[in-house]
């Protein structure tokens, strides 16, 4: 009796799980499919009375339009996004390696407090900081400059990287550097030769996530930039929304392009995704 109960339970569970997963996958994938499809639809098909869920006449006009449209400077937006995201990532991760090492490996007075300061900084959201940061950037004449955005993005990617690296460094056994020190290495040499190479995947993951955070950021870029001089892709693309007129073809094409690096980096960093999402608070 018990045995068949369990078997029934297993079958029911598989059925319920299958139905749930099918539902979730449709809800998740359909919108993505729709936007990719919209980016290659002809303009007349975009607003067809009966929506088209399949097309046989794909066109890359909207992608071309992004680059040729005179008011959007898509090339500059791309360059700005790349420069700003990679600069803030490089600065943050470089500084974070030092701080992460100190927090993970050294005992010194105030370490706990400093750890909390970093953690708190990681959690302070942009909605609480954007007003004072806007005024500060205006005072330093850093409005509408790439440097301004790089600095502002460091305000979240640095604490994030420190926190994530700290927890990654902690997973590397202390015994390794201790035995290197027994062999005559100084502490810093032991770190450079033993700990850092082992921590390379964690450092790469912190960089991937920092880059994505900066690449996707909207609020700061929205208030701090006005022209193609410093505007990033997410903000610049909104120029295709004029009052209530949405140019869906170009918007979809731009949305697809700006999603490619973010999605690619997430897939690359899958192994670290849980640690990354929680800033190392939960390990994958």
């Amino acid at each position: 009796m018990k045995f068949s109960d369990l078997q029934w339970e297993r079958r029911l569970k598989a059925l319920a799980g299958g139905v749930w997963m099918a539902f979730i996958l449709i809800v998740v994938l359909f919108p993505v499919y729709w936007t990719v499809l919209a980016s290659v639809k002809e303009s007349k098909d975009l607003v067809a009375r009966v929506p088209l869920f399949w097309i046989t006449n794909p066109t890359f006009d909207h992608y071309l339009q992004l680059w040729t449209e005179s008011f959007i400077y898509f090339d500059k937006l791309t360059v700005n996004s790349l420069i700003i995201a990679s600069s803030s990532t490089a600065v943050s991760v470089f500084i974070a390696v030092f701080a992460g090492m100190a927090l993970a490996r050294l005992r010194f007075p105030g370490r706990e407090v400093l750890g909390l300061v970093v953690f708190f900084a990681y959690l302070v959201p942009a909605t609480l900081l954007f007003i004072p940061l806007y005024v500060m950037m205006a005072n330093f004449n850093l409005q509408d400059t790439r440097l301004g955005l790089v600095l502002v993005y460091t305000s979240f990617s640095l604490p994030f990287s420190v926190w994530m690296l700290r927890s990654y460094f902690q997973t590397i056994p202390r015994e390794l550097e201790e035995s290197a020190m027994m062999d005559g290495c100084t502490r810093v040499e032991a770190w450079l030769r033993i700990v850092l190479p082992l921590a390379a995947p964690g450092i790469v993951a912190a960089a991937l996530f920092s880059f994505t955070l900066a690449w996707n950021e909207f609020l700061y870029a929205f208030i701090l930039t006005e022209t193609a001089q410093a505007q990033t892709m997410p903000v610049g693309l909104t120029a295709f929304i004029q009052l209530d007129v949405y140019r869906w073809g170009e918007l979809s094409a731009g949305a697809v392009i700006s999603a490619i690096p973010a999605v690619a980096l997430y897939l690359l960093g899958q192994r670290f995704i849980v640690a990354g999402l929680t800033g190392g608070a939960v390990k994958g």
Partner: protein
Amino acid sequence: MNTVPLSPGQTNAALVSRRTLSRDTLLGYALMLPALVAILALVAYPTFYAIGMSFYRKLLGAAEIPFVGLDNYITVLTGKLFWPSLVRTIVFTLFSVALKLVIGLVTALVLNETWRGRGLARAAVLLPWALPPLTAVLTWRFLMSDATNVLNYLLFKANLIQTPVPWLYDPEWAMGSIIFINVWRGFPFFAITLLAGLAAVSPDLYDAAKVDGAGIFQRFWNVTLPGIFPVLMVSLILSTIWTANEFGGIWLLTTGGPGQATTTLGVATYLVGFVGVRNLSQAAVYSILAFPILIVLVILLSRAISAREESVL
């Protein structure tokens, strides 16, 4: 942590670390310095700057900045925007986080079973989270647009609705719609972190519960839930902080409208500082008033994390 038998090398290592104690302190501060300076300049200083600003009247683009004492606080607290925005933020956060948690948990439970194609499904589930907010939000804006009516068309064909739903254009519907889209974007976070939590629950516990004749719901309640509880708390609080402070995901969908229907505190801060009265000092008051809530959440979170670390040990 597993215990390693004490070896001669280790006692020596302990000696080494004792000798370098003061050097550890120096090195520690030196290594922390760049990060600390950056955090002080970019997070701590702006926080205090906002408090300072809130006692003046700094209008967007104005050169003159008169001292006004507590005027801004009085204006904000007695005005018609702050309290309703706070209520809307709570409604938005509560419903959104609760739905993300439930949907994420069920998805994690299904993904935790062994079945073919599970790896692919896991990657697909992650997609809404990986998409830039702009991409995700524009996609839904398109689907819900009354010019294209894609979503209404599908629901109509599926016999779920009789008349078109004004998703983002009606005050009654708009809040529900932005919550739905926020859930769509945010549930993968719960699915993936809870999946990691589930993987850490020992299968022996399930077997023992099965032998004891515990049914599927009893097993969930008595084995699964306690096992993933610490991870669940961490995810819950992180998600609460992020959700309560959503901006782009609301602004790009409704700009806080129709009327004020979707004006949460984050949107209200922007509206006060940059759109309506363009009073940056009053906007700073909005941020400052939200700070105590954040501090409480952060304290809860750091407790949840230390509880989790203890449960692992």
